[in-house]
């Protein structure tokens, strides 16, 4: 019933370990939540559960994309950086899943210069920006919304931008959780050398942009 002292001790240690693990999982989940909203996950799962009724290979592909995205999201930490190539790959996974949901309501174009693919960027940095383009653009419109993703450099600056033709910038808009998170990460990683902005694009859409310092191109 009471056990020996060493048994009690190891029981305490196990309990403590359990607590630490629990805290870790919670922290990871909190991060996941700030990157991939539950709303996104549940809708994606519902899409899979619809498509699998008629097209199993396609549902399987979708589920695999979702798995990839979740894994990348769980594995990345605040201070992780990845190549822009990897970041764009994850963005495309997200976009593919969203395209299954919204079909003809969204078109995407990717203007990614070759000379930026090896630049390092904070992992999952652009994710909230693309998510916003869907949430405030595509999901609010019955017509087709175009999303354009740009990545290019001039000298030692990396310019990243996501534009959507569907949302309107309210004069009293404020950062949501996703944007606030991005800003904070940029501040911690780059101080004043990086910036994030949201602006109306002058033709009825909204552009979110990030400027990062990057190593000059090697000749």
């Amino acid at each position, binding site marked *: 019933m009471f056990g020996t002292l060493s048994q009690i001790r190891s029981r305490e240690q196990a309990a403590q370990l359990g607590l630490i693990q629990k805290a870790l999982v919670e922290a990871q989940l909190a991060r996941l939540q700030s990157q991939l909203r539950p709303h996104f996950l*549940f809708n994606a799962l519902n899409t899979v559960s*619809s498509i699998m009724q008629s097209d199993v290979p396609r549902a399987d592909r979708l589920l695999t994309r979702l798995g990839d995205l979740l894994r990348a999201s769980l594995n990345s930490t605040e201070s992780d950086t990845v190549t822009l190539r990897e970041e764009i790959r994850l963005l495309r996974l997200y976009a593919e899943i969203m395209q299954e949901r919204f079909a003809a309501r969204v078109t995407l174009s990717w203007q990614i210069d070759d000379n930026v693919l090896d630049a390092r960027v904070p992992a999952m940095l652009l994710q909230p920006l693309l998510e916003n383009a869907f949430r405030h653009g595509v*999901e609010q419109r019955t017509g087709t919304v175009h999303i354009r993703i740009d990545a290019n450099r001039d000298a030692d600056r990396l310019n990243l931008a996501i534009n959507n033709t569907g949302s309107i910038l309210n004069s009293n808009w404020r950062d949501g959780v996703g944007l606030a998170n991005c800003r904070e990460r940029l501040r911690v990683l780059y101080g004043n050398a990086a910036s994030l902005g949201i602006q109306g694009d002058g033709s009825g859409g909204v552009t979110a942009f990030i400027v990062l310092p990057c190593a000059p191109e090697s000749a």
Partner: protein
Amino acid sequence: MRAFIVDDEAPARAKLRLWPAKQPDVEIVGEFADGLSAAQGIIASAPDVVFLDVQMPGLGGLEVAAQLEPEDAPLLVFVTAYDAHALAAFDLNAVDYLLKPYDEDRFRRALDRVRERLESPGGPAAAVHAARARVGTSERLLVPAGGALRLIDCSSVHMLEADDNYVHVHTADQRYLVRRTLRDLLQQLGEQRFVRIHKSTAVNIAEIDSLAPLFKGDYELRLRSGKLLRLSRRYAAELFARTGR
């Protein structure tokens, strides 16, 4: 039962379509990809039950529910990826709520609940009132315009005038005839914005320009548009209390 399916995402609609096909007593008579056309469809063809997505562009599911005439409303089953909304739908007196993703068993249970409710009348009206309480006062109002329905901004409404079972909704340059009672409409639009000045008339408080006393406690009320109306003694005290005069 005649059922509607409303969801802005095509795969989600395909899924809602899947299982009713196996039920001999269920017929899908309408499918809509946005709230406004769903509301039009509901008013035009009065289905028995609507499977209604909560998150949609334009009018969301709760907003659609709030626009319906309580006595004629269909039974509502809210379908949502959101937990918070699902709980709201429960308070809403919805027949049921389906959380995405859901399986066939869960869908059948929802259908069973719909069947039960169809046999016991009085459900839908409660759901509409609850939706209104939940959404708060509507910022937009669905009105017939020509052969279709149009959403107008409630702040653009100057005056509401009861006429039997109908209400004339006046804006600066238009007049719409809505088959609703004044009391029901005022409940939906919120009593903060509109005030009754007569048994059969209510005005937008923001549109009141001036008041001049008449005899026996009545007043002449002038709207900013220049229109003159009579404020009856019975409603004067409330109007003064509300406008701080």
